[in-house]
């Protein structure tokens, strides 16, 4: 099996979960990777009491790593507390991906987290 392009990575790339737009939405974020021009946006719907992520959709375009990261993250993010998101670490995403990410592909993997942190009032700079 390929060490980077594992079956589940390609599955999420070809068939991304929770992709598209969500209207109406309560929170949104958008960002791009300046290295390659890839873009990613997110629409988030939160619970009536404002504490929980009820639903979200990512949209945009990117490589297999960035798309799979967004898709896999989306499944975890739905149901999480909004307040938890700004504290999510880069390792949270890389552990989720379960593959070794080279330094040159790190931003691809972290774009979705960057967008989500920005959408939930967190630090919108690149996760360490």
């Amino acid at each position: 099996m390929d060490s980077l392009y594992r079956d589940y990575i390609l599955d999420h790339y070809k068939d991304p979960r929770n992709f598209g737009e969500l209207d109406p939405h309560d929170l949104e974020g958008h960002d791009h990777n300046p290295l390659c021009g890839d873009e990613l946006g997110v629409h988030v719907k939160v619970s009536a009491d404002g504490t929980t992520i009820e639903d979200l959709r990512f949209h945009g375009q990117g490589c297999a790593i960035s798309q799979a990261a967004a898709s896999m993250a989306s499944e975890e993010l739905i149901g999480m507390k909004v307040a938890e998101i700004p504290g999510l670490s880069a390792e949270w995403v890389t552990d989720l991906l379960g593959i070794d990410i080279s330094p040159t592909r790190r931003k691809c993997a972290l774009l979705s987290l960057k967008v989500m942190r920005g959408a939930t009032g967190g630090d919108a700079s690149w996760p360490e």
Partner: protein
Amino acid sequence: MNPVTAPAVDVKADFPVLKREGPDGRPIAYLDSAATSQKPLAVIDAMSSYYRNSNANVHRGVYGLAQEATDLFEGARERVGAFVGGETPTTIFTRNATEAINLVAYAWGREHIGEGDEVLITHMEHHSNIVPWQLLCEERGAKLRYLGVTEDGNLRLDELDEALASGRVKMVAVVHVSNVLGTINPVAEIAARARAAGAACLIDGSQAVPQLPVDVAEIGADFYVWTGHKALGPTGIGVLHGRRDVLEAMRPFLGGGDMIASVGFESSTWNELPWKFEAGTSPIAEAVGLGAAIDYLAEIGMDAVRAHERDLTAHALESLARIEGLRVFGPTDLDLRGGAVSFEVKGIHPHDLAEICDREGVCIRAGHHCAQPLMRSMGVPATARASFHVYNTREDVDRLAAALGSAREVFGL
């Protein structure tokens, strides 16, 4: 097509870095020369020898060593200028092509571009020939206009006369050879049409000088810029060729040492061309290296370099066309394109293509190639790009085709 069995130019052995092994144990196939070229031993040795034997600051010292350094530096300028049909006093060394364009935008642009004036560039430009003009237009209240690009990757020259007819265009800045599409633009014609309309013209030759015979006098633009590191030379040195009367009338760009005739408490007078535009200690070793690079290219002959790149491009277009789902951008007419081939493969992002190519030691570029407006007008976020130079062979292209086949396998296509 000619059944070429051996490459007309066979110089790979002159480039030490190309012996480096890739992840699969084979020497790398370096296909990213549009980003930067590799350097022949002649260039590396010339720079090393300069530092070992001849290093001193130029233009000032009266001792023999300083004179030798000055001779090497100015000798390089003379040969670099002559290499592209330029005169020595109007051959100005800059840090790179970007700095040369900024020099023109600041030192010429601020004097000649005013409110309501227009600067005309194209959708095919590298960011280096976009952003300086955006800054200038913003500062001066001028308008930045663009010539479009046709679907087959050529400039919409039919829009040029219409744009020039306004009479407000004061500068036309156009790339000679596109770093993405490979398109070779008719720059002499563009320069002539700009001049007829009373506009100045700047040509960005960063991708042209490394691979085509270029004669800046024949092109006749007011400014022609290029960079050393794509032409087998070192990083840190670029070149601006300008029309003498235009350069003489311009104010300096950067102020400092070497660019002055005399410095008073309140004001100074400027040195002669080309030094008026070379403030501070120059990239001396880099000039020596660039001199060695153009000597090396001249020995091969730029007609032979062009023929070699044309052959590799033809081979690439033919090989890539056999790959399912692959689409090449840019002109298909080999007379109209240089040695850069941008493409996409359906179902695989360019970054992933580049990653899988790297596993087989094939170095290609993926991304927007510092040409985001062009990417937008082509309707793609990014492309993959293979670009060639004298040291590449048909085998390098075959390895690219094989690696792209592997990528399709990995992605289950």
